[in-house]
């Protein structure tokens, strides 16, 4: 079984190996340190010319990457914490995402910006956020989120090697120590093909699902726990539908699942308002004729506190999801 940290590291290594155009940039990414979360560990030793440690300059790092990409390279930038992404927001939105289209398709910007979002670690208000919702829906920028259901190393190397558009690749601090999911006897797992595959997870041998659980990234780990509890404690069967690509929004598998179950539970770690699931709601309302029960579980509308119990209060917990599912089942 592969761990996620290793899978990501493998994905980067594979990319460096496969193409001389691939470069890694980021703060503190040289060995022996190997990056704050060790995702790039070992790579600077093996590719010293193509792993470039940078000053503490998030906007600059992304801007430099865009420049490299415009000149034929395929840079991968690491932003140490997702919380710092907003420092590079202008570079992402007004440069990376625009050059292709505004140049009348004369150029491409194949960069990947990797960054770990997320809390549950007590790092406090500026080191625990889930901020990707703020860049979703940007024309010209793809946003992916790693999860354990689809090898994130494979996804990452596809984004690096095959995708000619800029990609924000969202990781999660708590994903790193996880193992790749294997369905075992408890689950049935199903992947939809594509460069950035979807996963659909069901309890093995379960009847038709009652609820569609729409979630992504690390939240799928929590979602999985709750699926089991709901099945065994309440005989409520959940179908968890997990995209790898968050933006552009291509939500067909979710719409289909929602059509089957009639109930949608969205789970997100960011604050609730105008999160990824809101676009799902809009699409459901726009396109489905049938009645849909819909609930969201997400962070409370406040910063992520440092203290354990407070952080717990702010971020979504298993119990919140469990009760939301029960509410959804009420006639």
């Amino acid at each position, binding site marked *: 079984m592969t761990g996620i940290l290793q899978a990501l590291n493998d994905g980067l290594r594979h990319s460096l190996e496969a193409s001389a155009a691939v*470069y890694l940039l980021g703060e503190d990414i040289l060995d022996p340190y190997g990056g704050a979360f060790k995702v790039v560990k070992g790579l600077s030793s093996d590719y010293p*010319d*193509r792993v*470039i440690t*940078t*000053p503490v*300059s998030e*906007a*600059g790092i*992304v*801007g*430099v*990457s*865009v*420049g*490299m*990409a*415009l*000149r*034929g*390279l395929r*840079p991968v930038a690491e932003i140490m914490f997702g919380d710092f992404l907003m420092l590079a927001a*202008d*570079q992402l939105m*007004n*440069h990376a*995402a*625009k*050059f*292709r*289209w*505004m*140049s*009348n*398709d*004369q*150029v491409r910007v194949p960069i990947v910006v990797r960054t770990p979002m997320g809390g549950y670690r007590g790092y406090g208000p500026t080191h625990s956020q889930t901020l990707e919702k703020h860049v979703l829906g940007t*024309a*010209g*920028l*793809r946003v992916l989120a790693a999860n354990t259901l689809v090898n994130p190393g494979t996804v990452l190397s596809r984004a690096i090697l095959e*995708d*000619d*558009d800029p990609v924000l690749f969202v990781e999660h601090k708590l994903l790193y120590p996880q193992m790749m999911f294997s369905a075992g006897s408890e689950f049935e797992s199903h992947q939809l093909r*594509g*460069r*950035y595959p*979807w996963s659909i997870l069901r309890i093995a041998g379960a009847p038709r699902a009652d609820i569609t659980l729409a979630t992504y990234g690390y939240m799928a780990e929590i979602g999985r726990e709750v699926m089991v509890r709901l099945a065994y404690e309440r005989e409520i069967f959940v179908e968890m539908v997990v*995209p*790898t*690509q968050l933006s*552009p929004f*291509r939500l067909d598998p979710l719409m289909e699942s929602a059509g089957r179950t009639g109930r949608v539970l969205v789970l997100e770690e960011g604050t609730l308002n105008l999160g990824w699931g809101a676009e799902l709601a809009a699409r459901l309302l726009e396109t489905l004729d049938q009645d849909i029960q819909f609930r969201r579980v997400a962070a409370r509308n406040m910063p992520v506190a440092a203290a354990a119990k407070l952080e717990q209060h702010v971020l979504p917990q298993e119990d919140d999801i469990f009760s939301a599912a029960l509410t959804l089942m009420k006639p």
Partner: protein
Amino acid sequence: MKSTPADSFRLMLQIRRFEERVLELFPRGLFYGTTHTYIGQEANAVGVLHWLEESDIVVSNHRCHGHFLAYGGSMHGLASELMGRTTGICAGRGGSQHIQWRNFYANGILGGTVPLAVGMALAVKKQSQGSVVFSFMGDGTLGEGVVYESLNMASLWELPVFFVLENNRYAQSTPIKLHLAGEIAKRFEAFGIRTMHIDSTDVDLIRNTSEELITSVRKAAGPRALIIDTYRFAPHSKGDDVRDLEEIEQFRRKDPLQLQAAKLNPTTVEELETEVMEQVEQAFSTAQQDPVADAGAVTAAMDETA
């Protein structure tokens, strides 16, 4: 040396007449949007880009027409872009501030293009291409933090980028004394970047001064910067000028075109005037007859498939 004094004059004149035409046509509703003309600053791009080689790269900013024409861009392509024609350099998508052609790039976010230039220089260096990246910016752009992030990396990694700081003494309406503390040259030197500072509108002097700096950059000696004190004669964009008329008048006495014309035979000057006026006419009239850019050729911003 590629060009004679007459060549430089011709190029400056092309920029000048082109830009004058733009300002003249704007109120007539032939364009849409806005523009920032290069009138008064022609000697900078023409002088510096004299040393341009085929594989070199130019990263420009909002005031990009002059850079673009000095780079070798076509007047017709630019006129069409401004008029929103399918024949525009970016088929009308970018407009005045957002042009891309061969190794020429511009964007309307001040300062945002400077890290791009540094990244391009990194690509050049890593691929051992020996090209120089020319990065143009104005005095006002020194307000943007990302510029310093870029200078640091350029110097730290000894990248082949040549920073050209066109100090026209204003950021939009704001005189430099209200937006900039300290000395411009030191802003670059603080990052270990060798910098020269000249106050001149003489294209030959600018060309000669930049030669040695550009040569060092090309020889992989790391980044260099040239600060050129200059002046724009026209408004910041279209009609928004609040500068002292006497001040403008005073700087007009150092008009780079007049300086250069004085070095030439008056008949040559006259001939060039006629030649250039025709080219400008031609560019705009052709552009005006070109098909208007419409939704027909619109593509997606990216590959949307998942």
